[in-house]
């Protein structure tokens, strides 16, 4: 599957001018609220008409302003999971699920009804009225309904945004499972770093209606020039790692990454499991000499690659540790006292207890 989007539309408050490609797997359309993410996928689905541009799935145009092509949403075969589920209130769960399935083309391969119901765990809800479902159940039914309409790809518009944290944790595995099991490319709109880290392979960074960056999630998250867009106080590094070892006596797990090994308190992680570690910049300290006799367990030698000059008392410093970028936020005062500048050799210190629970990414 390949998808090429190039759309332009003046929406009054701002202009959407977005161009990106994506392929299989889960692509996160990430950006702050109001950045234009939803407008972009509504254009992909055919719910909003761009003023100019071209949208192409597998080489076939579903929209092309120059050629006057605008395939209506019901013929695009693009599944859409809405933020508010939008289940039909006058139908029970089963009839909601069957709505798209009955309308698919005879030759369109659609997943098996029973399999979808199984994967999403909604077998016991089939005869329920939709207003009796919980938020999490509604979203699972909405995902199933979209899947059964035999789409070529799925668009998900912040499907977890209206759920409480527990429900979110309940739905996330289903999204991954759906992608793996039904081999459907998914474009997932989100403004939550956590969701993106857990789900996405590729990240499309949206800002002010435009595309600020496209690439593998780690790369985009770690790009120094994008920190202001990717996050604020919680900015940091995303580091792919693998479980190497665990020490049950102390409950410490060792994770290997490109620049060395992280040790952190975590239990129950299988050896060999791939994870994403999120290390917040403000939890990372720097030293000019290798610190002795400190409690910090994670100390790496690296080279400073950039120093931000934001005019604020805080400064973001990026350090290359064996090919992995680790961000550190220190005060401007420390920076000038230690005389840190690009090219310096520094020691990066990360408290083990400061690292978030590692995010499992399949």
């Amino acid at each position, binding site marked *: 599957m390949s998808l090429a989007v190039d759309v332009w539309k003046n929406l009054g408050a701002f202009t959407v001018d977005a161009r990106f490609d994506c392929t299989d797997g889960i692509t996160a359309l990430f950006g702050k609220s109001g950045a234009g993410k939803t407008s972009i996928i509504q254009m992909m*689905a*055919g*719910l909003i008409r761009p003023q100019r541009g071209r949208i192409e799935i597998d080489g076939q145009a579903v929209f092309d302003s120059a050629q006057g092509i605008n395939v*209506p*949403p*019901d*013929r*695009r*075969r*693009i*599944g*859409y999971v*809405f933020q*508010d589920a*939008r289940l*039909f*209130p*006058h139908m029970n769960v089963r009839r909601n699920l069957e*709505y*798209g399935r009955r*309308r*698919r083309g005879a030759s369109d391969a659609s997943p098996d009804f029973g399999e979808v119901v199984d994967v999403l765990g909604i077998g016991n809800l089939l005869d329920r*009225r*939709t*207003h009796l479902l919980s938020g999490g159940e509604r979203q699972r039914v909405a995902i199933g*309904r*979209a899947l059964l*309409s035999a789409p070529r790809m799925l668009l998900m518009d912040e499907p977890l945004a209206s759920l409480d944290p527990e429900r979110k944790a309940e739905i996330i595995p289903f999204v991954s499972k759906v992608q793996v099991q039904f081999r459907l490319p998914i474009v997932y709109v989100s403004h939550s770093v956590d969701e993106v880290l857990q789900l996405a392979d590729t990240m499309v960074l949206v800002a002010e209606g435009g595309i600020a960056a496209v690439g593998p999630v780690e790369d985009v998250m770690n790009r120094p020039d994008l920190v202001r867009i990717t996050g604020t106080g919680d900015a940091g590094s995303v580091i792919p790692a693998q479980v190497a070892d665990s020490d049950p006596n102390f409950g410490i797990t060792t994770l290997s990454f490109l620049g060395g090994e992280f040790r952190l308190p975590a239990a129950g992680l299988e050896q060999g499991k791939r994870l994403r570690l999120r290390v917040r910049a403000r939890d990372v300290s720097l030293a000019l000499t290798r610190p002795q006799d400190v409690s910090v367990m994670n100390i790496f030698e690296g080279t400073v690659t950039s120093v931000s000059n934001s005019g604020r008392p805080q400064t973001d410093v990026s350090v290359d540790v064996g090919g992995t970028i680790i961000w550190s936020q220190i005060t401007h005062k420390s920076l000038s006292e230690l005389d840190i500048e690009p090219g310096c050799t520094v020691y990066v210190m990360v408290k083990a207890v400061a690292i978030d629970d590692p995010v499992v990414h399949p």
Partner: protein
Amino acid sequence: MFDLSQAEIAAVLLSLKVSLWAVGISLPFGIATAWVLARLEFPGKTLLDALIHVPLVVPPVVVGYLLLLLFGRNGFLGGPLYDTFGITITFSWQGAAVAAAVMAFPLMVRAIRLSIDAIDTRLEQAARTLGARPFDVFLTITLPLTASGIVVGVILAFARALGEFGATITFVSAIPGETTTLPVSLYTLSQIPGEETGAVRLVVLSLIVAFGAMFTAEVIARRVRKRIAGS
């Protein structure tokens, strides 16, 4: 008292027939008009809206007279109707149904339009993304979600048709057995000295029919609401 005369039974049946036909023929137009007013923006929309509401604000006798002009043998519609099909609806029960339909139309449209306005159009969008064509969406999403409004519209229109008098008597007169609905019969009797008993019997009969119809309507409405009880 309730040993109904032939004429009384005929009046009741005629009233029901006229009202049912009036509601039946105007319902598809009522739904279409309500949808157009709720969903489309076009020049002259205010004018159309005003035109539909005319029967609510002018005296019924004016509507009756306009119908007479329109459907008379030399009328704008009546002429071609007679020349092509040999049909005249003036002074017939069909004419009474048309008069009742026109008078009841604004009530029906208002009720249906309110309920179309209340539909979350995002549900219709969702249906589109699931592969439903626009008319399919109308039939499977819009219409069922409008059902309660349609029921209300039908009840109001039926009630209005049942009580229709002014436009009817102007348009189709009071022809015994043909256009003597309950209100028309009652009016006729009330004009004849010494027929007070007959008039009172018709008053009671009218009340019974009205209550019966409204009771049935409420039962149906309740069932529909229950069936589509959603969010």
